């Protein structure tokens, strides 16, 4: 059974105010599942490779969000939004990510609006509709 806690087992030596090392990273089980999904069935992934990927994806999050945050600071806005993330991706060389992310964001906002409208009108269809919409979004995102 995989250790869901992450690559680091250093739990006991941390004080309350310090971020635990394992909390810096996404859970290794979730990362491992995503890795397996893209590979053929005969492929295997070593534990160390999953740990390397945990580090890489956490660095990716910091890299992108720092760029977006800096943009907001310069424009004297307090809230970082999805458009800033898309801009940051394009700026940092992930051009092929930025366009799918914009479309994903646009569809997400549509779903939110529809959901709010349905709530206001007190109809009963919203759960199914939203689930179906998000399912389509999920498929499209993976399809890159």
């Amino acid at each position, binding site marked *: 059974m995989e250790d869901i806690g992450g690559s680091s087992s250093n739990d006991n030596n941390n004080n309350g105010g310090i971020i635990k090392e394992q909390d810096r990273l996404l859970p290794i089980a979730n990362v491992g599942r*995503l890795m397996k999904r893209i*590979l053929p069935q005969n*492929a295997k*992934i070593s534990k160390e490779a999953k740990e390397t990927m945990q*580090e*890489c994806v956490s*660095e990716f999050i910091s890299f992108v969000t720092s760029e977006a945050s800096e943009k907001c600071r310069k424009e004297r806005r307090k809230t*970082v939004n999805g458009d800033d993330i898309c801009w940051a991706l394009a700026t940092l*060389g992930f051009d092929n990510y930025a366009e799918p*992310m914009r479309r994903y964001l646009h569809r997400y906002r549509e779903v939110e609006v529809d959901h709010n409208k349905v709530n206001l009108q007190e109809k009963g269809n919203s759960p199914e509709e939203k689930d179906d919409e998000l399912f389509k979004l999920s498929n499209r995102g993976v399809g890159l």
Partner: protein
Amino acid sequence: MFTKQMISSEIPMLMSKACEIFIQELTFRAWMHAEKNNKSIVQPCDVAKVIMQTDTMNFLTEIIPNNLGDFSVFDAKEENIANIAEENEVSLSFTAGFMGNPMMKMDSEENAGNIVEGNQATLPYTSGFMGNPMNMMNMDNVRMK
């Protein structure tokens, strides 16, 4: 002066999807590197190789050494691959000896299987293979079809 900032509720969702794509892109490229070396297990050195070869992944170069301990491990693996290739070439006409070679026993059963399979595939092309190292790549292409 550091001003406190907030994030929109759409950002966790958006970053989540971006991370999925990032993980799968990096994993697939690492797998292609592993496959090129006739391995079926993705290792950290495969990921490291991709990071060094891809411009957009340059921001990750600082965290790779820590994760791999040191690059001598990486170099050692490359050397090991070269050794396997040499043995494969030398033993083309000594199949029985190849199977009994003690060096092969040190590899995992899976790797041994891959090597045997590769060896069998190359037998019909002995003359071409011996004369032209590029044929190795051609045969890889043939096998992939």
